[in-house]
């Protein structure tokens, strides 16, 4: 079923692109869909462009694992549209032609701005492309049963076809279709979640019997755990005070988590993956089609009550029941270590959290932590707020409508559609958290797996939409990046003489090249956290592009050199701060505590630095540019 829906969608999208192919014979047609897209269509296409794999898969997965902290991304991403509407939409439409560079360079015709803005567009677009392509592989692998690399190549080939046949016209309609389907079927999924209601024994509508995890009381003497009823075969104490024991339970050797509260030790049944010489062992037996990690996530208590059968509820009742201080949510954490046989063991262990703790910030972002941890949170919220209006692939959508008023109206449609979707993410994420549908090893599949608990048809549709999500966003990114190469660099910076047909051809060739690079990067970065990379793109965009846009519009003393310098400083400072952050040190395989920069979100430093650079350089170059003019 899933394969049929998926293939039908791809055939439709490619067919549509071929049909629209004749609209991309001029530069205006290729880069801006002729500038005559209706504002309503453009608004939904904005939603289709913006709601990437990170929004749909990433945020739902994050809410399903850390609760409200995931919803902070929804709030920040939506708030960013206010900057786009009130500050950027109409002026950008008036100034620009095809690309972000056109708008910032409109008043100056400066080679420095052209080069800096084109590089910025490429850097931001590629930062954004990597997680989309990685997400595509993650999605296609289980859906079609093909390896990650083939999944990435297939997505790349489809997107290149979409962009190279009809440029922004086909990209717009693919994004419109995807945006509309995403909102409609996410609403269906949320409706299904609240109609099914909450239960302490979720069984996916009877399809998957609820698995009750056991626990055993134990004691601890001289650091050694002892339990009378079972044989303890091995004990591992790892950094951070976590203890795991290997024991024989019901004839199976498995790893359990030793939880210690107020001097009482409880051994909690967990799930484990052991990498043995002869292959993976899951929960004490060799991996097979039948022996996989069990899906998890449930409520241990609803308002203090156990053994609750599912009852339909309203949207408010659903949230209020989870928020209650006497509701206990069973979430799952993981830890890895090397056992006495030298094998790598990953244990997925239960972690019970009160509902009122799940539903306020703090599980991921340490708002009650040290000053640096709070600063990191502030930095993230700043980058999310200021990043949207500086994303080149979003800004170019303003050129596809006919007038500044249409740009404004399409932004309002986008805010309505995106805001509505982000409210749905809270219900989808929490639904996945408590419905016994979470894959403990991969939170990115939270929404599709939640859909599968309502039957194969909804799973097939949601999976196809998740795939369309990748197609829509990647198409927009490739149009933006190919515009930076073919239009900003070849045509405007290097001033290579081309007629209009050749300019379109240059755009298409660039789309092929960037699509190829995206495929390679999607394969190389397999397994990397997709949400983190999107956050990185927002921080780079907010640092490099936003100061230029804002000061260009509101400060008359802004000079071309000031803009070029601020873009360069914004890119370099944000990338350097990210490269030296604890998160990247973990990726390098180094100790994150050795990272010279103690926070992961650079915006709070790189955004003001870029603004200061623009002001300082503009003031220093006033006379020079006035004289040149």
């Amino acid at each position, binding site marked *: 079923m899933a394969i049929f829906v998926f293939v039908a969608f791809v055939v439709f999208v490619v067919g549509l692109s071929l049909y629209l192919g004749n609209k991309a014979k001029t530069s205006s047609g290729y880069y801006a869909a002729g500038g005559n897209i209706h504002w309503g269509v453009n608004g939904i296409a904005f939603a289709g462009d913006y709601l990437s794999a990170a929004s749909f898969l990433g945020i739902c997965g994050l809410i399903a694992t850390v609760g409200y902290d995931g919803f902070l991304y929804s709030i920040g991403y939506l708030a960013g549209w206010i900057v786009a509407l009130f500050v950027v939409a109409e002026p950008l439409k008036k100034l620009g032609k095809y690309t972000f560079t056109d708008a910032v360079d409109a008043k100056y015709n400066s080679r420095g701005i052209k080069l800096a803005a084109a590089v910025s567009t490429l850097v931001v677009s590629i930062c954004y492309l990597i997680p989309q392509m990685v997400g595509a592989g993650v999605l296609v692998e289980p859906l079609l049963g093909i390896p990650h690399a083939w999944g990435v190549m297939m997505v790349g080939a489809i997107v290149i076809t979409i962009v190279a046949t009809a440029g922004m016209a086909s990209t717009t309609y693919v994004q419109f279709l995807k945006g509309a389907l995403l909102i409609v079927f996410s609403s269906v999924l949320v409706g299904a979640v609240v109609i099914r209601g909450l239960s302490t024994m979720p069984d996916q509508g009877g399809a998957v019997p609820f698995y009750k995890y056991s626990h055993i009381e134990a004691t601890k003497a001289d650091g050694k755990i002892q339990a009378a009823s079972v044989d303890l075969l091995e004990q591992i104490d790892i950094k951070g005070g976590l203890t795991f024991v290997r024991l024989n339970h019901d004839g199976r050797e498995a790893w359990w988590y030793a939880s210690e509260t107020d001097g009482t030790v409880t051994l909690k049944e967990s799930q484990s993956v052991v990498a043995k010489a002869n292959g993976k062992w899951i929960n004490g037996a060799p991996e097979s089609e039948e022996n996989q990690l069990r899906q998890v996530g449930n409520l241990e208590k609803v308002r203090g009550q156990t053994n609750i059968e599912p009852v339909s509820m309203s949207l408010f009742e659903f949230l209020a029941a989870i928020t209650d201080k006497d509701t206990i949510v069973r979430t799952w954490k993981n830890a890895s270590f090397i056992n006495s046989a030298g094998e790598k063991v990953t244990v997925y262990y239960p972690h019970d959290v009160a509902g009122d703790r799940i539903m306020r*910030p703090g599980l991921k972002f340490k708002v009650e932590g040290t000053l640096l941890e709070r600063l990191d949170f502030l930095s993230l919220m700043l980058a999310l707020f200021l990043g949207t209006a500086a994303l080149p692939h979003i800004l170019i959508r303003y050129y596809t409508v006919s007038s500044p008023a249409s740009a404004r109206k399409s932004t309002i449609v986008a805010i309505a559609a995106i805001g509505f979707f982000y409210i749905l993410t809270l219900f989808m994420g929490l639904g996945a958290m408590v419905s016994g549908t979470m894959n403990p090893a991969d939170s990115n599949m939270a929404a599709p797996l939640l859909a599968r608990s309502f039957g194969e048809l909804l799973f097939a549709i949601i999976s196809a939409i998740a795939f369309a999500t990748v197609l829509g966003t990647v198409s927009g990114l490739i149009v933006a990046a190919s515009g930076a190469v073919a239009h900003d660099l070849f045509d405007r910076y290097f001033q290579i003489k081309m007629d209009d047909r050749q300019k379109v051809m240059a755009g298409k060739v660039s789309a092929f090249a960037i699509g190829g690079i995206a495929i390679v990067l999607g394969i190389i970065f397999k397994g990397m956290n997709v949400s983190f990379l999107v956050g990185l793109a927002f921080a780079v965009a907010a640092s490099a592009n936003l100061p230029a846009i804002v000061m260009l519009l509101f400060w008359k003393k802004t000079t071309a050199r000031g803009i070029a310098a601020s873009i360069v400083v914004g890119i370099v400072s944000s990338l350097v701060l990210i490269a030296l952050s604890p998160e990247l040190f973990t990726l390098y395989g180094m100790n994150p505590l050795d990272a010279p920069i103690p926070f992961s979100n650079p915006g709070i430093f790189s955004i003001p630095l870029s603004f200061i650079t623009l002001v300082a350089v503009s003031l220093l170059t006033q006379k020079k540019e006035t004289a040149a003019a």
Partner: protein
Amino acid sequence: MLHEPATHAGKDPAGPYKMRLGVWMFIFYALFYAGFVAINLLSPQAMGAIVFAGLNLATVYGMALIIVAFIEALIYNAMCSKKEAELERKAPKGKKAASKSNKKGRA
């Protein structure tokens, strides 16, 4: 010679009004957003307080940030459209065409 925009918008007499309005509405929303971030940083426990229909401050404030964004957007559009129509009525006949192209534009 400058690189001309794809769509010739014409002169927009409502431009300064819309820019001023946009800046004020942006400041209002930015303060509302800053309030949310500040409570999280200065008094994170307060986010857990139940404020409406069993929902806590974090949920209500978060939802409000999304809903207020939409309401502000509608108000902004209504005020801009009203001003554009008003100035278009007042504009001399020759200038109306330019103003109209800003409002509706052409491909």
